[in-house]
């Protein structure tokens, strides 16, 4: 009995000394700030900052390779936290949100051919530039849905990507994956958008889409500050986005919409995945 206690005690003592020595000898210098930043970041590892995960973004901040305001998910609170840790002044970026600049779903556009193949927009886009006649319309095969870490995007029954505004963090992963460049980041404060991406002339747009921008320029005539018409496509100047709503009624094809009114109707998720607690509002 006694032998066992002494024997085990000796093993414990030797191991403790060895471990204690090894801990000092092989200690890795960890910047405490890195750990603090890592803790301050949301830990979603969404990759929206351009780094593989929150830990690698934290070490990039410490090494000076990245600015402190790249975490869109965390928003201003996280940036201010990191600014405190690093002892610098926070330069806040305006919160952004992804917008699908297309409303040409399967009921409103003409197809070039019937696609049956990989359920991936990038793969479909390689076949004769996609199954839609519109060269820049949403293909609706959900490559953006697959990359969204926040379940903020869904494909409507009519085959159009739609963003849940309360879930979108503006990480920009969907913007990078979309082969048609239909998804853009816009200031979260702006709720009025021109939902079209086609630079084709008006007559051509009409030949394949009932809801495409024909570049008539009426919106610009109505509210010159808020609209830019570039190569037959109207765009909102987001610096004056608050004025843009005045042109909604004037657009002949109904391309300008205001998401604050939860437009278009019936575009909510039928059964919202329960990743983030929300009421499913602000869906578009």
């Amino acid at each position: 009995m006694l032998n066992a206690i002494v024997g085990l005690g000796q093993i414990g003592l030797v191991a403790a000394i060895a471990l204690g020595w090894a801990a000092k000898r092989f200690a890795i210098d960890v910047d405490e700030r890195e750990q603090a930043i890592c803790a301050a970041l949301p830990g979603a590892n969404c990759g929206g900052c351009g780094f593989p995960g929150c830990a690698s973004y934290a070490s990039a901040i410490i090494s000076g390779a990245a600015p402190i305001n790249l975490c869109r998910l965390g928003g201003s609170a996280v940036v201010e936290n990191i600014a405190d840790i690093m002892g610098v002044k926070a330069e806040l970026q305006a919160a952004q949100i992804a917008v699908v600049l297309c409303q040409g779903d399967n009921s409103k556009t003409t197809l070039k051919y019937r696609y049956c193949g990989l359920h991936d927009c990038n793969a479909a886009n390689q076949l004769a530039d996609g199954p839609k006649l519109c060269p820049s319309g949403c293909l609706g095969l959900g490559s953006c849905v697959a990359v969204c870490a926040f379940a903020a995007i869904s494909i409507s029954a009519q085959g159009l990507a739609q963003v849940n505004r309360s879930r979108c963090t503006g990480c920009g992963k969907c913007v990078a994956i979309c082969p048609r460049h239909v998804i853009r980041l816009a200031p979260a404060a702006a709720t009025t958008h021109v939902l079209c991406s086609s630079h084709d002339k008006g007559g051509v747009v009409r030949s394949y889409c009932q809801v495409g921008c024909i570049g008539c320029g009426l919106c610009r005539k109505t509210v010159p500050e808020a609209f830019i018409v570039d190569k037959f496509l109207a765009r909102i100047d987001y610096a004056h986005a608050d004025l843009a709503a005045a042109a909604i009624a004037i657009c002949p094809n109904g391309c300008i919409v205001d998401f604050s009114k939860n437009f278009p109707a019936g575009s909510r998720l039928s059964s919202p995945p329960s990743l983030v607690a929300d009421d499913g509002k602000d869906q578009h």
Partner: protein
Amino acid sequence: MLYKSFTGGIALADRKLAESKLTTRGKAIEVCPIPEQLIIPMVQHIGTPAQPIVGVGDLVLKGQIIGQAGDFISVPIHASTSGRVTAVEPRWHSSGKELLAVVIEADGADRWDPAVEELKPELWTPDSLRQRIRAAGIVGLGGACFPTHVKLTSPADKPITTLLINGSECEPFLSADHRVLLEQTERVVDGIEILRQILAVKRVIVGIEANKEDAIARMQQCVAGRDIEVQALAVKYPQGAEQLLVAALLGLQVPNCGLPMDLGVVVHNVATAAAVSAAVRYGHPLIERVVTVSGPGITCAKNLLVRIGTPLQKLVDFCAGPRGEIAKIITGGVMTGQSQISLAAPVIPGTLALLLFGAADLPQQEAGPCIRCGRCAAVCPLHLLPTAIADCASLGRFDDAQAQHVMNCMECGCCSFLCPAYRPLVQSIRYAKAGILAQQGRA
């Protein structure tokens, strides 16, 4: 009797598809009338596209050069008939894009350019023959459209010892090469002799699949007294793929990412040999090819001799139009061909066939998940793992796909054909290949 072959692949003999060739194999080549308007794309071959050297309003003669070749891996493009150039603009191409093309309004006279003349036998040297073949715009007529003169120019460290002539035509429905072998046998043999002279090789083997008994007999008769072997091959898809023909006839394996040239072997198609003969003996450039028009969606299936640039619609019209409503149009074979959006695209040297299908002929099943049966791996003639590559592609992990040797895949389609879950494996492989090339382009 056991014929020479390779491992993997699909023996079509015991499948319904073997019957598909019976529709057209017995039909003699008919000449398709020259349409009023020919659309001659500047992209007709692998390599640098040609540059148009004619303008709107110019009068051109049959055989006149209208597109100048780019660098070494490129050939000039010729007018297929005489007429007036009405447009030089992007037009629908069978690759599914709008590409630069010269549109010619035929004058109906079909006059040859007086500059077109034969190469006198006293001037025959390997170099002059190669130049003539390039000037005539000859590309491989087996479907890949690789410029022929490039395959005839071997680097000094790779001496060529064997010339293989590919008459296997293993794809279902296709019978164009079969008819060329039967009806233009002398011309094919003459082309083989010219190719042999350029390459200075002694050993020549013509490989023909055993289901073309008449073509084998005719060929054997024609090569009597010449030093040319004729070998019957097993009826198995994809026997006509270059590296598999080398494996079947010589028992050699083309190295990873290598060419038959690395083994001292050069492979040419029978129709290419015939085109080489026409270019050298008569100076005729590549302005026409034999196209099989078949499939359940065509009223009267035929083998047609078609001018390059003829819109596909004209072929359908000449074959008494479609039977019922058309749901799918394929140029080339059903296994490796290209789906078409419309019949507006023109015939190019790579258009082996035009196949039409109605809605009832198409598979209706949706793709399901992989059931791990391993049939794709067993059938792959290159011993790749199609399902693993498809998984890498769907996850966007192109590095892993590359580690699975996806770049070696020749897209024969055996895996997709056999997959019981109807997975689009070849599309995944093409997607992975495009992704890898895009990554390399960025690097």
